[in-house]
C-alpha cells in the first residue's frame, strides 16, 4: 500500500505499510498497532506525555532486530517536542515528547512497538514522581511467582510506612509495582529504598526472591529489580505494547487479580482486551499520578 497522508487530532502525518504484519505469529499488522495506540491514548497520555520517552523500534516486526531510540529522531515533525534527558558521558540529549494522539500515531507508524518512560517528568528530571519495583521472573518461574512476591511487597510497604502501591503487568513476563510519590524525592532515595525493601524480602524469602541482577542468582527466583529507580533508566510504560509473539500490553491490574494470579490464574492481556478493560474500569493506574506519599527518610533501617 502506498504512503498516505492522514489527519489525526488536527495534525497531518504520513503513514506507510499499514498492512505490514509486525507480529507474524498472530498476523497483527501495523494498522492494528497504530489503531491500538490511538485508542489507548486517552488513558496512556497522562502517564507518558510529560516525560522524555525512549522508543524501542521493531522495523521488521517482533522477530526482527530492534533498536532503542533515546535521541528523538531529527526527522520528526516539527510539532513533536523533546525533553532534555541524560545522554552519554554526562551530556544531555533530546528525548521525544509523546504528548498527543498524533504523536503516538507517529511513533507507532515508525514501528516503535514499545514505549519506555523514566520515573521523572521531563521538566524536572532529578525528581522521580514514583518509585518502581520491577519483578522479573528468572528461569522456571513466571507470573504466578511474581504475583506472590508482589503481594509480599505490598504488605511490607503497607506495614512499614503505610504506603500504597499499584500493580501492572510488564506486558512481557513479569509484574511491576509503582509507589506513587508526587512529592519531592531524589532518584538516589528511591533507589536506596527499593533496594532496602528488596533485601528485606530476600532475607525472609531467600528461596524465591533475589535482589541481585546477576543471571546465575536468578534461576527459580523472582528478581526484584530496584535499580530501575535510576535517573538514566526507563521502564516499559503503562499500556505500551511489548514485542512478544502476541500483541500483549503492559496492563494495570487490581489487587484481586494479583491475588488470583498468585493462585495460578493467567494474567496476560492483549491489545483488544486492554481497550475493553479501559472501557469497563477506566484507567486503573490513575492513582499513580495523583496520590501523594513520602518514602521513609534515607538511612532509616527497614
Amino acid at each position: 500500500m502506498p504512503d498516505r497522508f492522514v489527519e489525526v487530532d488536527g495534525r497531518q502525518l504520513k503513514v506507510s505499510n499499514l498492512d505490514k504484519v509486525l507480529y507474524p505469529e498472530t498476523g497483527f499488522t501495523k494498522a492494528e498497532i497504530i489503531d491500538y495506540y490511538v485508542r489507548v491514548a486517552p488513558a496512556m497520555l497522562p502517564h507518558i506525555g510529560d516525560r522524555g520517552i525512549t522508543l524501542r523500534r521493531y522495523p521488521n516486526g517482533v522477530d526482527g532486530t530492534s533498536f532503542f531510540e533515546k535521541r528523538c529522531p531529527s526527522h520528526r515533525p516539527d510539532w513533536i517536542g523533546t525533553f532534555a534527558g541524560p545522554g552519554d558521558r554526562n551530556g544531555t540529549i533530546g528525548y521525544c515528547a509523546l504528548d498527543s494522539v498524533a504523536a503516538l500515531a507517529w511513533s507507532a507508524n515508525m514501528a516503535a512497538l514499545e514505549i519506555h518512560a523514566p520515573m521523572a517528568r521531563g521538566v524536572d528530571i532529578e525528581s522521580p514522581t514514583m518509585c518502581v519495583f520491577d519483578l522479573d521472573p528468572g528461569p522456571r518461574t513466571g507470573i504466578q511467582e511474581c504475583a506472590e512476591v508482589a503481594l509480599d511487597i505490598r504488605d511490607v510497604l503497607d506495614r512499614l510506612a503505610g504506603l500504597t502501591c499499584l500493580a501492572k503487568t510488564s506486558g512481557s513476563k513479569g509484574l511491576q509495582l509503582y509507589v506513587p510519590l508526587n512529592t519531592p524525592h531524589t532518584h538516589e532515595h528511591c533507589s536506596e529504598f527499593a533496594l532496602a525493601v528488596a533485601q528485606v524480602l530476600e532475607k525472609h524469602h531467600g528461596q524465591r526472591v533475589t535482589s541481585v541482577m546477576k543471571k546465575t542468582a536468578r534461576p527459580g527466583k523472582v528478581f526484584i529489580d530496584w535499580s530501575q529507580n535510576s535517573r538514566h533508566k526507563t521502564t516499559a510504560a503503562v499500556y505500551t505494547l511489548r514485542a512478544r509473539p502476541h500483541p500483549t500490553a503492559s496492563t494495570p491490574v487490581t489487587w484481586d487479580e494479583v491475588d488470583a494470579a498468585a493462585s495460578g490464574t493467567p494474567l496476560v492481556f492483549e491489545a483488544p482486551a486492554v481497550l475493553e478493560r479501559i472501557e469497563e474500569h477506566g484507567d486503573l493506574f490513575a492513582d499513580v499520578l495523583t496520590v501523594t506519599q513520602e518514602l521513609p527518610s534515607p538511612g532509616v533501617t527497614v
Partner: protein
Amino acid sequence: MPRAIWSGAISFGLVNIPIKLYPAVSRKNVSFNQLDSRTGARIKYKKVSAADGEEVPAEAIIKGYELSSGAYVTVGDDELASLDPDASRTIEIEEFVDLADIDPLFYDSAYFVAPDKATVKPYALLTQAMEESGKVGIARFVMRSKQYLCAVRPKDGALVLSTMVYADEVNDPKEIGEIADLEDVTLTKKELDMARQLIASLSEDFDVDRFEDTYRNQVLGLIERKAAGDTEIIAPPEAMNEDKVIDLMAALEASVKEAKAARTRHPAGAPEAEEEAAEPAKKRARKSA
C-alpha cells in the same frame, strides 16, 4: 575548555617547570555513522577469527608481529611496557634552533603548554627569554608509550609544543616517479618570467581567518535540509495536498478489518492454516517499515 592530555615537566639545564599539555586544535570533521539501510540499525564491528569466522573475545586477542607470511612472533603488553623509551615525565629541551630551520613537513600535532599554578614565574621567564632570542626548543618526550620529537616555541606569551615526525618516517619524494622525472625538464627564461609575474599578482599577506571549510559547510547544510524536510516519514504540511488527506481512523479501518478477517480465515493454532499464513506474513515483514 579542552582537557589536559599529558602532565609532566619541561626541563632545560637545571630548571624544571611542571606543565600540562592541552590540545591546540579541535577538529571539526563531520562524522557519519554507518547504518543498515533496511532497518536504520547501527553497523557494529565484530572481531572474528580468520580461521573459522567465529567471534573472538577481547581477552583472547594478543599482539603478533609478522616475520614472513603467516609466521608471527607474539609480544605481550607487559613486554612492550618494559621497553618504554624513557618513561620519565619530562620534556627535556636538548637544543635551541631557529624556527626557519624546521621544514613544516615535520610538524605533526600542536599542543598548548600550560604552567602549573605554583610555577607560573619560571614558565613566564622561559617564554619571554625564548621570545627575545627568537629561538625554538627541540626536545624529546614520552606520551602514551611513544617517544616524540617536538618543537617548543613561544606564541603570544605562552608556549606551544608541536610534535614532529622523525626523519626516517618521511618518504623520499624521489621514489615518486613523476617527481624524479622533473630533473629532465628544461624551462625557458620567458616561461619563468611569466610564472613569476603571475605569482606576484596573486601575492597576499596570509590571513588564516579568510579561509573556512566550505566543503564541511556544504555537508552540514545538506544534513540540515534533509533533517528538516524528511521525505521518508513526514512531508511538511504545506507540501501536502488537502484533497488527499483523510482521517487516520478512516485510513486504518480497512486495514484493521482486513487483518482481523485474515485471522478469522486462518485462526492461530490451526496447524495447516499456520503454515499457509505464516509464510507470506514473514516475507512481508522483511520489507522496510
